[in-house]
């Protein structure tokens, strides 16, 4: 219950941070990505603030046997740089540049009720669903090939 409340409050603070920093506005995101135009460096300052705080918190977490409200930390352990990672990031970046929204600001901006955001989030849901669908199809194909395959879990 406390963990659920913590998630809820963290969600609120996250959304406020995005709104205050200007990240709910595609013009700020596209302005940052427009390195050869009227470049707007604001997004770099968002990253700077967020990463600095998180860097300290992560160091702190390494000294804790467990998180305060949960039995263990769930931290991704994969280190391999693979084609999936690069291809996925490349596709995501293209969509980010095209619309000016990434998942956090898009979900936050749903609260505005603006129909362009609704269209974006609906398409994002379909994209997410398509991934699950294609992965499941690939996995069932692998299973039917009767080889022993280890599938790494998603983070």
């Amino acid at each position, binding site marked *: 219950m406390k963990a659920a409340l913590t998630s809820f409050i963290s969600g609120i603070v996250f959304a406020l*941070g995005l709104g205050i920093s200007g990240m709910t506005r595609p013009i700020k995101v596209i302005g940052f990505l427009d390195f050869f135009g009227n470049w707007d460096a604001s997004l770099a300052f968002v990253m700077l603030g967020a990463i600095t705080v998180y860097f300290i918190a992560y160091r702190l977490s390494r000294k804790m046997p467990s998180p305060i*409200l949960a039995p263990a930390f769930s931290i991704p352990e994969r280190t391999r*740089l693979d084609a999936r990672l690069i291809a996925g990031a490349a596709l995501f970046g293209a969509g980010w540049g095209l619309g000016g929204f990434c998942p956090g600001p898009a979900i936050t901006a749903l609260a505005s009720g603006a129909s362009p955001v609704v269209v974006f989030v609906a398409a994002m849901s379909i994209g997410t669903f398509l991934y699950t669908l294609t992965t499941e199809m690939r996995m069932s194909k692998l299973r039917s090939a009767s080889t022993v395959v280890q599938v790494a879990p998603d983070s």
Partner: protein
Amino acid sequence: MHNFTPIASLMGGILVGLSASTMLLMNGKIAGISGIFAGILNPVKDDTLWKSCFVVGLLVGGMLLKPLVSTAYDFGVVRPYSVLAVAGLLVGYGTRLGNGCTSGHGVCGIGRLSPRSLVATATFIATGAIVVYLVNHILGGQL
């Protein structure tokens, strides 16, 4: 450089960092929004509650922004629905294939100095910049 808002962006970024840090230190979870969102669409046992609570929090925060930050929803650039649909598909599919977005890789991953996240972030900023270059400087800014 117009529209530059270093102080507000730094302050907002610190709030994002505090939120993600709270998720880590209290709940032991990575505040990766694409993963949280996907976890609601395709529920996994034991993870659905906290993910749902976080997303409801985002929406409540989004509602609070309306009175608090008057410009929060001045989008400035609004692409046609067809373009937003393609963008949404790419973001939804790409973030799952690459296991993260701006929050999971860009903030939490880089904060942990994860090589995967550093490479992912460099990649999505690069392809984002290429697309914006094409749209703004080849196609004249209109889609």
